């Protein structure tokens, strides 16, 4: 299937899986490469290590245009290669760039002269300029900012809002092949220098975090003065300076890893270059405080008073809905804080892992609430919103709901005799 127009994707983690599929969905022939054991083989068989709405459907429709391979030499036939390995972070949200650098070396060694190499992985400012210096002069390097959103990644990759492309020099234009590829997605393309593109991604995330932090701050005050944040949000969305898609829903801090990584990068840059980044420290501290809202609410409701009598049902382990990712998940923060208590957990996709002997995992939400003294809804999975008061009344020992995201109908459950706690009211 390889031809002169085959687009290469190297590194098949979340980013590579989704973007290679988007390329196929837009009609391109794709060579998706990853030489880690079993990765290409599993993907070729339709076994995805990630969960994204629409991914399996897209595979059914478009897999004929994708060749998954562990053979790096095949990349030599691709004039345009995207490097799409996700960069993992440690507990302090620092990036581990070594696997990415190793992959780039592998790709650049086999890429044909004049190949256009497009880096999409999450790299800190300065990375691309340094990389361009050490790559063979026959390769042209670009940096395409990824704005993957877990749980909505396929949709955003197939129908992007815009492309931000980092270039060595902005006045030399994009190569024809790359330009033609981007044009197929029918959205604005914003060329900029490498450093701007690298910082652009961080800038987007900083604005998201500031919205989240502001919303959480005001939502908490709402709860204390008798206001309701959900009544205020529509007014904010109608304000052009804020907008209909702003991150205004209160939540349990930032999680998932990417936002945290970018905040750590800003702090590092500010320290290195002498800028005032105390606001970033404030966001981080605020996020930790927001994450622990559930713990404080459990205390205020008296659930923690007697460890031997508490049996807490916990719905949702993932850090957000429609993903199996648990990186920095608030659910795990609660579990780690309360090993003396008995938990009954359920999540449609995420796994509990090891180290939680005090947590029993169930295969349905209603099984998990059986005999519980409180129900925590830690991830706003849609399926939870279908549960009725009657179903919970029949199973729970105490009618206490801690529902930060308002998955359930507050009025309905309050009127049905539940003690109901949520963010923002």
């Amino acid at each position, binding site marked *: 299937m390889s031809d002169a127009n085959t687009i290469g994707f190297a590194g098949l983690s979340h980013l590579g899986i989704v973007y290679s599929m988007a390329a196929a969905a837009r009609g391109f022939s794709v060579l998706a490469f990853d030489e880690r054991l079993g990765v290409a083989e599993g993907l070729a068989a339709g076994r995805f290590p990630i969960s994204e709405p629409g991914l399996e459907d897209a595979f059914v429709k478009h897999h004929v245009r994708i060749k998954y391979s562990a053979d790096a030499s095949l990349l030599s036939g691709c004039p345009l290669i995207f490097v799409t390995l996700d960069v993992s972070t440690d507990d302090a949200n620092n990036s581990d760039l070594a696997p990415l650098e190793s992959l780039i070396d592998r790709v650049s060694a086999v890429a044909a002269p004049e190949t256009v190499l497009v880096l999409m992985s999450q790299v800190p400012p300065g990375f691309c300029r340094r990389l361009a210096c050490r790559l063979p002069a026959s390769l042209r390097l670009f940096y395409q900012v990824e704005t993957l959103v877990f749980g909505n990644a396929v949709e955003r990759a197939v129908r992007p809002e815009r492309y931000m492309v980092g270039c060595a020099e902005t006045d030399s234009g994009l190569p024809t092949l790359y330009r033609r590829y981007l044009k197929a997605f029918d959205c604005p393309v914003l060329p900029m220098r490498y450093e701007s593109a690298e910082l652009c991604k961080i800038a987007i995330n900083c604005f998201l975090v500031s919205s989240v932090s502001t919303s959480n701050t005001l939502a908490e005050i709402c709860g204390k003065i008798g206001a309701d944040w959900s009544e205020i949000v529509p007014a904010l969305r109608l304000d052009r300076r804020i907008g209909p898609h702003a991150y205004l829903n209160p939540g349990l801090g930032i999680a998932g890893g990417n936002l945290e990584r970018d905040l750590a990068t800003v702090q590092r840059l500010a320290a290195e270059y002498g800028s005032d980044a105390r606001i970033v420290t404030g966001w981080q501290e605020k996020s930790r*405080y927001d994450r*622990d809202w559930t*713990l*404080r609410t*459990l*205390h205020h409701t*008296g659930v*923690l*008073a*007697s*460890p031997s009598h508490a049996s807490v049902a916990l719905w949702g382990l993932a850090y957000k809905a429609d993903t199996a990712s648990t990186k920095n998940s608030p659910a795990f923060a609660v579990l780690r*804080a*309360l090993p*003396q*208590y008995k938990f009954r957990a359920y999540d449609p996709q995420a796994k509990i892992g090891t180290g939680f002997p005090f947590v029993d995992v169930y295969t349905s939400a209603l099984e998990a609430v059986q005999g519980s003294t409180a129900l925590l809804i830690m991830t706003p999975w849609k399926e939870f919103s279908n549960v009725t008061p009657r179903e919970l009344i029949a199973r729970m020992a105490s009618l206490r709901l801690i529902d930060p995201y308002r998955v359930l109908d507050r009025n309905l459950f309050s009127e049905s005799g539940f003690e109901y706690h949520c963010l923002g009211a």
Partner: protein
Amino acid sequence: MLVHRFESPTVPSRIVLLGSNGFLASQLRCTFEVARLAYRAIGSKEVDLIDGASTDQLAQIVRFEDALVVTSALTPEKGRDPATLIKNLRMIENLAMLLGRQPCAHIIYVSSDGVYASRSSLIAEDSPCETGDIYGVAHVVREKMLLQACQKADVPLAIVRPGAIYGSGDTHNSYGPNRFVRTALKDGKIVLFGGGEERRDHIHVRDVANLIQRCLVHRSAGVLNAVTGKAWSFRAVAEKVTAALGCPILIQELPRTGTITHRHFDITARLRAFPDFQATTLEEGLAETVSGVANAREEGLT
């Protein structure tokens, strides 16, 4: 943030309580007795920590397996001046010298929420210790001195920073619940600065002792704010005192001299350390205090 050396409660072989006669120390003695914990209380009459000889004296008493609870301090009513500050530091200097000679199993240092800045904010254990008050400075420096000595001697150190402690038996007369109860009983009135709008976290002395006991049995190390997590205005406290007394009390307002500052605490670290701890409600605590102070008055103790 506290880290427990013992996940399951383990009774220390003996507790040495430094400062035995203060408000909190008295409560600690009660708590230890009720819990049947072996302890040795040492007051300043027996060993004066300000005196350099105290190191030798304590070296004769303290054993390797002991847990030390340090409540000794010259409180603000003894002086908010450089001389008192130096004496307070001298006490810890002598104690640090003791640790160099005779390490022990665990130390709990009772500090103060005075280490934090007085501006309005939500305070947590990792909030900056930026006090402008010389008594607060004393505790900041004492904490650092002890931390250094404990690190050197490999002794786990828990720093407990209580908020505004109240309860019957309080020997101080600072602005707040105890003064309100006393003046209400004695004069039938409570005097507020301004409208008493400032909010503070008032913790019952028994709760502070309870938290210290928990730190002891878990051999905890780190910092813990001994607070309830609920701040009340002085006006609300005055009204609750009045309600507890069950008779009309005049609440008088004096012209305000300073700006209004509030003090709230984030108790997340405490919830992680001791999730099942439940603080006494202010209503319960004040009712007990009213009853205790009234009984003491009848017995001519105050």
